[in-house]
């Protein structure tokens, strides 16, 4: 049986750990709150831009733009959104596993795809597997603003427009609720599946639909990436919060069972001492 002192020091170190995980849980909780409200603030912009894109794309059949065209696929782009650090449960690994499997299934050689990594964990994962990472951003703030991401969003859309890749997929954790996130695959480009719903207004175009699509479509594609990032951030913080909560709970369990062990050992030591004293006294008689 472990000595009293050993058990005591284990209890203490577990307590320290649980204090840290508890603090991290609370930090994530407040970040998650803000990330969620960021995602909410972004929603009206997305809705609006979607509405306009829809009505232009459906209203004028003659308007065409490279972003709307499907072309034979020689190279596929994968935008992978992960966190910059771990300690978030399965947040990073589930996305990476999914992307890795998909790439293995779809492509035979590494010339057929490019990777755009947002987040350090994803970048490191692909670099260590010698997969080509075309663009990367690390150190995205916890509450990203559009300007933090506009550079990479622009370069990503440019990859497609310059025909360096012929389709673009995006992988991220979609935020379902505080305790559940799911890995989502979303096709960003070409924009083929624009759903038409609700009432559409017919517009006058100033100067003409083509010029407007020129401005509108890249902006739309960039906002899709930004939206996914906000969604991913909300998932990241809630995943970290859950992971840290379960770590704190586990630490508590360990402390409980260790305290039980500690008390038993103490009891045993006392009993032994009494027996020794009684034995000693009996020997004297």
């Amino acid at each position, binding site marked *: 049986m472990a000595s009293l002192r050993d058990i005591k020091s284990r209890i203490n170190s577990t307590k320290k750990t649980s204090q840290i995980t508890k603090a991290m849980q609370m930090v994530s909780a407040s970040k998650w709150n803000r990330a969620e409200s960021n995602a909410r*603030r972004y929603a009206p912009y997305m809705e609006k831009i979607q509405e*306009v894109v829809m009505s232009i794309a459906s209203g004028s059949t003659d308007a065409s733009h490279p972003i709307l065209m499907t072309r034979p696929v020689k190279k596929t782009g994968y935008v992978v959104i992960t966190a910059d650090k771990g300690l978030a449960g399965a947040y990073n690994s589930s996305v990476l596993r999914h992307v890795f499997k998909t790439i293995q299934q779809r492509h035979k050689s590494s010339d057929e795809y490019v990777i755009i990594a947002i987040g350090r964990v994803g970048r490191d994962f692909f670099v260590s597997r010698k997969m080509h990472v075309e663009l990367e951003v690390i150190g995205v703030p916890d509450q990203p603003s559009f300007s933090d991401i506009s550079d990479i969003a622009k370069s990503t859309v440019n990859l497609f427009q310059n025909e360096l890749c012929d389709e673009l997929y995006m992988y991220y954790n979609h935020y379902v609720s505080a305790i559940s996130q799911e890995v989502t695959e979303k096709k960003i480009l070409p924009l083929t599946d624009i759903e038409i719903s609700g009432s559409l*207004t017919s517009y006058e175009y100033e100067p003409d639909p083509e010029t407007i699509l020129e401005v509108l479509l890249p902006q739309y594609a960039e906002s899709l990436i930004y939206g996914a990032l906000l969604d991913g951030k909300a998932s990241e913080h809630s995943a970290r919060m859950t992971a840290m909560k379960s770590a704190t709970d586990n630490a508590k369990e360990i402390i409980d069972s260790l305290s039980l062990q500690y008390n038993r050992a103490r009891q045993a030591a006392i009993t032994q001492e009494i027996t020794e004293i009684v034995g000693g006294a009996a020997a004297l008689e």
Partner: protein
Amino acid sequence: MKTIKVSVVTPDGPVYDAEVEMVSAKAKSGELGIMAGHVPMVAPLDIAAVRLKKEGGTDYIAINGGFLEVRPDVVTILAQSAERAETIDLVRARSAKERAEKRLQEKPDSIDIKRAELALKRAVNRINIAENK
């Protein structure tokens, strides 16, 4: 006078929401003035000020590109970033201008020049609006 609702929306949230008498904006194809009852329209905007005339004054908003959508009951401006004249940080705008000017003088490759020119345009726009409000 009849008014029309205007909302300026960016990815970072709504910036402006009010009833105004007239919206003047600089579209890529020229200046536009929109009042209540305008025909539905979409137009891409230049990096410039949007002037919102209402009872008792005019509001200025610095718009960084984007586009304008007019509906019978509402005008929506969708931009990647927008700032009201009151909230523009003049010091930051000036330093952004200097940065962009320096980059233009050094003349690296062509992509950066284009980007620096846009940044310069944005900074000048913000400075003008903040000073003339």
